[in-house]
């Protein structure tokens, strides 16, 4: 209830400011709503959002899978950790823009380069979080699994992943938001479609209504994904935890 109220206050404040400003640079909620409807009817908005969402999904999946494997390996082996840690430091401090430019120059202005650039930007963050989670694995449970001769897959599925679940959840939540923000930059710089591309062209035309409608729609989409996919998964993974009073 209070959420709805705070949202209503925000929209009201926006409407009042827009009405007072009377400027082409700050269209009100109604104008943005009308622009959104028009974009949806023309099929433009669903198409562009689908392009972006596809890139987000691909880059996110690559970063999570590779990052989890690398993070787990580094958390397990001190030797590997010492060896690869400096690479990780370089990667984590590399500006997103530099990675994107390198990818486009070396791989070309194509889909592979775009997705890879985003995945690489997200990768070190996943590695760091999962490495920390792996270090926190319970050695006593591990010993139990060895005593009962758990097979490799059984160990991963029933011993390791449940313990890493909070770390996987943390990195996927922060990851999803980072990934979609960077995907827009990648699209702005070198793709002929997607929300980032649309925002770029709208920017050159100073079409504020379009910029706002695409931005809002994409945020809403991300909230829906979070609410319908990420949170239920998290709840499922945490069923066993006793609720704190």
């Amino acid at each position, binding site marked *: 209830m209070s959420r709805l109220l705070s949202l209503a206050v925000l929209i009201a404040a926006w409407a009042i400011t827009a009405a007072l400003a009377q400027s082409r640079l700050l269209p009100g909620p109604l104008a943005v709503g009308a622009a959104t409807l028009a974009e949806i009817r023309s099929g433009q908005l669903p198409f562009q959002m689908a392009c972006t969402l596809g890139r987000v999904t691909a880059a996110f999946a690559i970063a999570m899978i590779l990052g989890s494997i690398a993070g787990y390996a580094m958390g397990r082996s001190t030797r590997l950790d010492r060896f690869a840690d400096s690479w990780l430091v370089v990667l984590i401090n590399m500006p997103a823009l530099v990675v994107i430019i390198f990818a486009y120059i070396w791989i070309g202005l194509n889909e592979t380069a775009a997705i890879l650039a985003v995945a690489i930007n997200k990768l070190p963050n996943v590695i760091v979080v999962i490495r920390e989670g792996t270090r926190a694995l319970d050695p006593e449970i591990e010993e*139990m699994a060895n005593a009962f001769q758990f097979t490799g897959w059984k160990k991963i599925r029933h011993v390791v992943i449940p313990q890493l679940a909070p770390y996987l959840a943390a990195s996927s939540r922060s990851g999803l938001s980072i990934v979609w923000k960077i995907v827009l930059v990648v699209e702005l710089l070198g793709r002929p479609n997607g929300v980032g591309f649309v925002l770029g062209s709208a920017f050159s035309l100073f079409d504020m209504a379009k910029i706002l409608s695409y931005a809002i729609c994409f945020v809403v989409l991300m909230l829906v994904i979070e609410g319908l996919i990420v949170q239920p998964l998290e709840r499922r993974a945490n069923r066993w*935890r*006793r609720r704190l009073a």
Partner: protein
Amino acid sequence: MNDAQTAGGAALLELRIDAKSYRSADGTPVEVVRGLKLRLETGSFGALIGPSGCGKTTILKIAAGLDADFRGERQAAQPGRLGMVFQEPRLLAWRTVEQNIRLALPAERAGIDLGELIDVLGLDAHLTRYPGELSLGLARRVAIARAFAIDPDFLLLDEPFVSLDEATADRLRGELMALTTRTRVTTLFVTHDLPEAVQLADRLFFLSDRPTRIVLEKALPPPRGTRSKDVVAAISDQMRALAAQAERGAAGN
């Protein structure tokens, strides 16, 4: 697998630990065990008795084959299945009681009927609960069920009844007694509680302080499991005196 014991007197486990030490946090080596020899016959129930912190758990881990970092030799009759009950229940908090028990099963026993075992241990009402919702006594019972469910050739228990109230511990001892008698599994049991050892075991190994070795080994007259409280107390007193004597003798040398 338990038919193998008809060859009475065959040893399931022979263990010789010449030396076992580990590095403490500040890097100095600590010697835990020195010159320990242990032989456990198939089908017998051995108890290791010693003061807290004397390295009982270390010996048990070496006996289980979980720790190969020691000087000496470990010989097990057959690779066999190992059932282990740790000092803490060590259950997977994110799996239900039933899943915890079934996950330990080897592939060829997956899906077997555990009804009887679960009945004996009184776990029927708790199968769908998570370990976090169980009392320590119940969690220990689940750990015992897990160890028996795999139908082990060799069962190791590391002080499985500490920090339980006496009534619960007593009930669990009775259940353990029933299960080990029925399956005739070779068992090695670690405890600091002499009457408990006398009640359950048929062979006692008294351990010294660090570095640990065996100061006295005593076979108890069969049958185990039927000793009354008074008999247990009497044997315990007798054993305590013998062990003290043996320790003094060792110190005098």
